[in-house]
Structure formats: structure tokens, C-alpha cells
């Protein structure tokens, strides 16, 4: 799908991946996340936080239960040397505005609320590289500005982010790579 793609993402930077449908934005992010083994070439990245097109939130569980699982499993997976999660589950839910529905099974929440729960995972993750696939999908204006702020804060704190998006991502638009021609 790609040829001669060479990408260097230093800490503190955010890069936006653009391109028409089918140009491979999602594939690139999944590659970076380590979800495809059959690429030819090298990826030198730390373990990354990945938010896919599906939010990765179980509909049977409430936002709190989803996030608790993510935090516990993530912490035990972190291994030696990784900084512990910065926030508690409650703080993360408050940050995305889900306190009011933290105990309701996610299947009964709206699309936007589910996306917010998925986003809250990013705040729990100790990992420095964020890979966000269409993070603005289904979010309202307030939610979209929230995403922009999260990314800015993350990068300011020494993290890095790579986002695939059709919509403008606020201040982070400066660094963009353009993937040409769909398949």
C-alpha cells in the first residue's frame, strides 16, 4: 500500500495524516500500533496507545468498568520503567465529561459518549505515543475542542501523537503528511 514511507516523530510533536478515503491512513496507524505483522520495513516505536475507528469500549460494561479494566490490564502490562498512569479513572471520566453516566452500560450511551469513553483511555495510558484514528468522529463542538486540548497537553508533556483525520484538528494542523491516491 505504501512505498518509501519514512516517518520520524520526535517527542513533543503531533503529526496529522491526511488523504482521501482508501489512501491507507488507518492502515498506517494500525501498522504503527503493531497490529499488522506483514509489513516490509522497520518500525522503531515505543509501545503506543491506539484509538481505532471502533472505540474499544464494551457495550455491556459501564464507562467506569471499561476504564478500570483498561487501567488494571495496562498497568500490569506496563512492565518495569514505564511511568504509572497519571490519572485515576474518576479524573479521566471527569476530563471527558462522563461523570453523570459513569455507571450506565455503554450500549445505552450515545455514539459521542462512547467515543468520549474511548478517548478517556488515552488519559489513563502511561504510553507516550498516541495513535488516534479519526478522534473527532461523532463528537460535538465541545468534544472536538477537548480532543485538541488533550493532544496539546500530551505533546507539551513530552509525548507525541499521530492522528488520522479529515477534519481540522485546531492548532496541531501545522505538521501534516499527505497520503496520495486511493486504491
Amino acid at each position, binding site marked *: 500500500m505504501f512505498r518509501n514511507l519514512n516517518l520520524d516523530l520526535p517527542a513533543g510533536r503531533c503529526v496529522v495524516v491526511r488523504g482521501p478515503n482508501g489512501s491507507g491512513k488507518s492502515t498506517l496507524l494500525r501498522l504503527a500500533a503493531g497490529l499488522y505483522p506483514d509489513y516490509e520495513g522497520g518500525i522503531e516505536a515505543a*509501545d503506543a496507545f*491506539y484509538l481505532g*475507528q471502533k472505540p*474499544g469500549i464494551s457495550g455491556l*460494561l459501564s464507562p467506569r468498568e471499561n476504564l478500570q479494566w483498561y487501567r488494571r490490564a495496562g498497568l*500490569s502490562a506496563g512492565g518495569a520503567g514505564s511511568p504509572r498512569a497519571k490519572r485515576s479513572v474518576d479524573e479521566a471520566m471527569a476530563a471527558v465529561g462522563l461523570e453523570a453516566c459513569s455507571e450506565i452500560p455503554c450500549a445505552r450511551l450515545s455514539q459521542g459518549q462512547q467515543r468520549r469513553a474511548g478517548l478517556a483511555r488515552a488519559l489513563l495510558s502511561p504510553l507516550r505515543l498516541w495513535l488516534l484514528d479519526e478522534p473527532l468522529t461523532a463528537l460535538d463542538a465541545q468534544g472536538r475542542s477537548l480532543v485538541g486540548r488533550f493532544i496539546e497537553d500530551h505533546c507539551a508533556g513530552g509525548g507525541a501523537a499521530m492522528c488520522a483525520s479529515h477534519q481540522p484538528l485546531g492548532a496541531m494542523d501545522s505538521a501534516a503528511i499527505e497520503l496520495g491516491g486511493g486504491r
Partner: protein
Amino acid sequence: MFAAQFRREWLCVARARDEILNPLAFLFLGVLLFAMAFGGDDEALSAYAPGIVWVLVLLANLMSLEILFRRDFEDGTLEQFVLLARPPFVAVLAKVAVQWCVTGFAITALAPLAALMLSMPPEAVPMLMLCLLLGTPALSLLGAVGAALTVGVRKGGVLLALLVLPLYLPVLIFGVSATAAWAGGAAEWAQIYWLAGFTMLALTLSPFAVAAAVKISLEEC
């Protein structure tokens, strides 16, 4: 890792009770159908009871396997599972353990009822339960490999059966022969050791296969 995953799966299962109850209801419906098919011939029924029970257990297990990974696959949690699970086989084991609790273990607990309906001799019931307890983990573990391979396949149910049922054959053979021997009054331990051995082998190897298969299936999306 095991504890976190086990807790999560347990919560999910508790929220979707129909998914636990359907295979169990299927098992007893099957028992009922066989009892009717034998038309009240209790002697013939009790002679074939071990085989009937085991075949129904195999099928009931298969039914609950289809949804083992499907829900997680559809809402994207399976991707996170793969990225988080370190080591992956431990997380897989937690998932399969919960599935076994609500099928294999539940079936074992309810086996006396099925044995009663199929007019098995009461003395054979404890051994039937022991065989089920030893054999069903192997079913869940092997079946999870098939479930992980077919999770990305639309309407993967029949395919799953096709992949998994041939692998179930040793459990069926040893389970039926041990149960039948004890029902006939012979104290046969060999097949029970075989069942336990087969389960141990499945326990050692299949979590790795499941972890690999889940990763492979995720490439599809």
C-alpha cells in the same frame, strides 16, 4: 493481568445472561428430544446415555464459543486486548476460564439432572461428573482456537463447527468410553487419565495458538 481480565469477562457474562443460558437450555432440549426419539424404551436410552450426553455437551460448548470473541471483535475491545495483554496467553487463559465456568462447569453441575432424564444408573453419576469436569476444559481451550480464527468471518458458525469438531474427537471417545464403563459397573481409570492428560496438553499449548489466532484475525479489519 489474569485477575483484571477475569473480572472484566465475568462482568460481561453477568450482563449477558441469555448467552449463558441458551447453550444450557439447548443441552436439556437435546436430552428431551433424544428421550422422545427413544419412545419410552428406558433400557435402550440408558445404554446410549453416555454418548448422547457427550455429543450434546460438545454441541452446547460449540454454541457458546461462537460469541467468545465476537462481541469484543465488533466493538474494538479485541484490538485493545491484543495491545494490552502481556503476556497474551495469560489474558487468553482468563477469557477461556470464564467461558468454561459458564459452560463446562455449569454443565458438570447440571449433569445429574441430564443423567436422571436419560435413566442412567445413579452410581455412574459421580463419574460422569468427574469425566465432564476433566474433559470440558479441553473443549473450551481447543474451541477457543477455532473461535479466534473465525471471529472475522461473517457467519462463521458452521465453519467453526467444521474446524473444531474433528479436534473434539479424542474427548468424545475417552469421555464416552469412561462414562459407559462406569455405568456398566466396571472401574476403568485409564480413559480418565487420558482425559486429564489431553486437557493438560490443551491447557499448555492452546493459549499460545489462541493468542496468535486473535492477532491474525485482527488483520482483517
